[in-house]
């Protein structure tokens, strides 16, 4: 007879077979690519074999979603929202004839082994062959310790809702700091491993106590924070005006259901990103030296302030593309990525609104989300750069020497506006996915947006190295642009024919799109050095990345979903 403990051990693998197989597939693909890439020397120059940031991005970047998935799989966060007070440990196991220490030991051991193993596998088969000599042992130990602590905290009942989010964030932030610290100082492996290994039994102890409490039903509850919060919430300015139109009412609804999460996530990102900048090395020149080639390779020409700014600017539009998947959702119960049901929720479906109006309401919410997110970003980044004096370093960048202060200012302002509009476009680009109400489509696109852009970027970069590759890329880009424009024409014609949009309005939208595209092309080509980046490349990238068909398809997809 199989012991319950063993059955429990296999539980995680059973539940997440698809996800774990995809992770294994990703690892295989990356390892094979690494096999065929010759080992590269470290160096900032463009000679053969030089490690470029893009390598680092691809090889290391594919590691991050995999390890994130593995950790999430072992935390059991699917069994309940993490912000609740209850333990995330599966309830049904509490009635098994297994003692709590055994119950807890299996998932913890497996998680520790898996996370450490993933790092070891990545380092030895992907990074080492390519020449990235990152340490093997202590990151594995660090990952194992972190996972153990994340598990322990998730499984402990917390007295107040949302407190767990705070504690988990603290753990993650601590990890970031320790990792940065470890990379900069050269501490012998032995000390690392002992320190981190000591953390794991501690986590195990905390987990046992926590799960035992959950098993007994002995969850502490502080009612006073909830009461205080209720008083605050009820006294906050509440919308008391009537809604002027159905569109406004629906926009309010979409904002409350899905819109609030987006600026919140941006805030969380800033909370993590800004301290890393503040506590990290002030100037790359102090740190980048022949002894730390890795940092030099990653940073390239950028200074820390530049890295900081680029990180923020790159994060927002990329992340918004992902959030658009959620914003478009028409199933408002449950987590969007776990929704098993297909279709449109009747509460939305029965509203006397046309399909176009529902999409418009979501687009209005997208505007609010974009403005709030960027407002937050500027409000945080500006003072950070100003107060730390880092703006001086940015202003001293060689690229700005050829422009007058007035031109720089106008360029920055125009760039900011274009960036905001571009972010909004990325946010609404994937509305059609959520509107389709097909959970499999949503999930697969989330994976694609998260993961697959890296190998594509790598392939593009690799092709750019060879002249034959360049011509193939050009041909491919031209076909892609052609297909995109033809498809756009078909969709817009369909929209006007079905009377979802009026023809003048459609013409206006297209005109705006063209203006924004031209604006972006001008700004980007002015900023990037012309010899290295051809105009055609900029045009192709901008046109292909600017969302057009997603927007046009949204009302049509909603019509299909809403009236199945």
């Amino acid at each position, binding site marked *: 007879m199989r012991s319950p403990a063993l059955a429990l051990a296999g539980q995680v693998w059973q539940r997440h077979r698809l996800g774990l197989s995809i992770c294994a597939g990703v690892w295989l693909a990356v390892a094979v690519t690494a096999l065929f890439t010759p080992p590269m020397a470290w160096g900032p120059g463009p000679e053969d074999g030089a490690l470029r940031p893009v390598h680092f991005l691809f090889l290391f970047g594919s590691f991050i979603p995999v390890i994130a998935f593995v950790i999430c799989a072992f935390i059991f966060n699917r069994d309940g929202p993490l912000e609740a007070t209850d333990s995330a440990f599966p309830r049904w196991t509490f009635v098994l004839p297994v003692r709590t220490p055994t119950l807890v030991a299996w998932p913890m051991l497996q998680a520790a082994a898996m996370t450490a193993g993933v790092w070891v596998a990545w380092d030895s088969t992907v990074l080492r062959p390519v020449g990235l000599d990152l340490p093997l042992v202590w990151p594995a130990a660090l990952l194992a310790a972190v996972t153990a602590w994340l598990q322990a905290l998730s499984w402990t009942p917390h007295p107040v809702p949302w407190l767990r989010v705070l504690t988990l964030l603290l753990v993650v932030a601590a990890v970031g700091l320790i990792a940065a610290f470890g990379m900069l100082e050269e501490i012998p492996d032995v000390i690392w491993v002992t320190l981190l290994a000591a953390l794991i039994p501690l986590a195990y102890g905390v987990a046992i106590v926590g799960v035992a409490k959950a098993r007994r039903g002995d969850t502490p509850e502080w009612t006073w924070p909830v009461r205080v919060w209720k008083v605050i919430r*009820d006294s906050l300015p509440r919308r008391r005006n*009537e809604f002027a139109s*159905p569109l406004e*009412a629906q926009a309010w*609804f979409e904002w409350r259901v899905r819109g609030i999460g987006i600026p919140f996530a941006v805030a969380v990102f800033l909370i993590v990103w800004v301290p890393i900048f503040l506590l990290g090395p002030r100037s790359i020149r102090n740190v980048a030296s022949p002894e730390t080639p890795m940092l030099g390779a990653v940073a390239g020409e950028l200074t820390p302030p530049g890295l900081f700014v680029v990180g923020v600017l790159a994060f927002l539009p990329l992340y918004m593309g992902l959030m658009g998947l959620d914003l478009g959702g028409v199933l408002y119960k449950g987590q969007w990525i776990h929704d098993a049901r297909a279709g449109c929720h*009747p*509460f939305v479906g029965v*509203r*006397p609104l046309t399909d176009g109006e529902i999409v418009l309401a979501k687009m209005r919410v997208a505007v609010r989300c974009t403005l709030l997110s960027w407002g937050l970003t500027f409000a945080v980044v500006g003072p950070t750069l100003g107060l730390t004096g880092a703006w001086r370093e940015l202003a001293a960048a060689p690229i700005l020497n050829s422009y007058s202060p007035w031109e720089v200012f106008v360029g920055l302002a125009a760039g900011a506006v274009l960036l905001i509009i571009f972010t909004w476009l990325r946010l609404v680009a994937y509305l059609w996915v959520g509107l389709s109400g097909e959970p499999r489509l949503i999930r697969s696109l989330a994976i694609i947006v998260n993961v697959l852009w890296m190998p594509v970027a790598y392939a593009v970069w690799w092709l750019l190295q060879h002249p034959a590759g360049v011509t193939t890329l050009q041909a491919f880009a031209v076909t892609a642009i052609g297909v995109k424009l033809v498809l756009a024409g078909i969709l817009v014609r369909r929209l006007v024919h079905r009377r979802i949009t009026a023809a003048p309005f459609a013409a206006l939208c297209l005109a705006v799109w063209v203006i924004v595209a031209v604006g972006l092309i001008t700004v980007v080509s002015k900023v990037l050095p012309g010899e290295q980046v051809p105009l055609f490349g900029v045009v192709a990238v901008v046109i292909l990345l600017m969302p057009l068909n997603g927007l046009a398809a949204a009302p049509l997809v909603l019509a299909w979903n809403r*009236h199945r």
Partner: protein
Amino acid sequence: MIADIPENREPVVAIRDVSRRFRTKLALDDVTLSVPRGVVFGLVGPNGSGKTTLIKHVLGLLRAQTGSVRVFGRDPVADPVGVLSRIGCLTEDNDLPGWMRVDELMRYMRPFYPNWSDAYAEELRQAFGLEPAVRIQELSKGQRARVGLLVALAYRPALLVLDEPSAGLDPLVRRDILGAIVRTIADEGRTVLFSSHLLDEVERVADHVAMIHRGRIVFDAPLDEIRATHRRLTVRFPEPRPRPPALAGVLAWEGSGREWSAVCAADAVGLRAAAEATGGSVVAEHDLGLNEIFVARAGAVAARAEV
């Protein structure tokens, strides 16, 4: 009260030759149904017979794969605003957003319906005993049903659609729902379409009843006519019979030994004669309640399907 009502002779809901297939399952099989104006139309049928599918077609949540659906003379899929702004609906799941407060829900619903009356909504809220500042997820199931009823009634819809509204609710809430149906129908020109398992309730308030079983309409007639045509005849035989005689027109036989009861759907007189021809004598003839008619009919369809 209600703007631009089409001519009074037109049915409010006209479903013609609608079939619906979900992968392999045939949920609706060539259904034709007409809901006249100003009636309470009851839709009854066993679980999984297609009631909810039919109602979803009326609301425009499902597109007719064959045939046509017209509500107020318009297609609910092509004209959601025109149709849905005149329909109030309450479904079995009653999925209202839990995070909303009652007053927020009322404020949210208001701009969608031109006939929304704040005074009436407030009157209903007080009559149902709903506190405005309470979140819907903190309410009991019965109170949640009352909230759903409130936002369905507050704009006095021309058509009230209820899909198993009383499922799992206590008698007080069920009374509120029935009361709402009666008040709706008491206003000129308004119609109610509701599906239910609770045949007692259907018998109380319905003018017109249609039964659907395995996707087909079994009967569709005014309630008085249904009650008049279905009768139970008790036949007494001189010697005990192990099996009742096979007579045409009998929906279900019941009994044992000497006395057998037959439920018939039409032509009780002819059946009487046929029964007497087999040697029995008809000792009693009864009216039937809707419950018994339903059970007899459902059994008859099942028996026919097995043959």
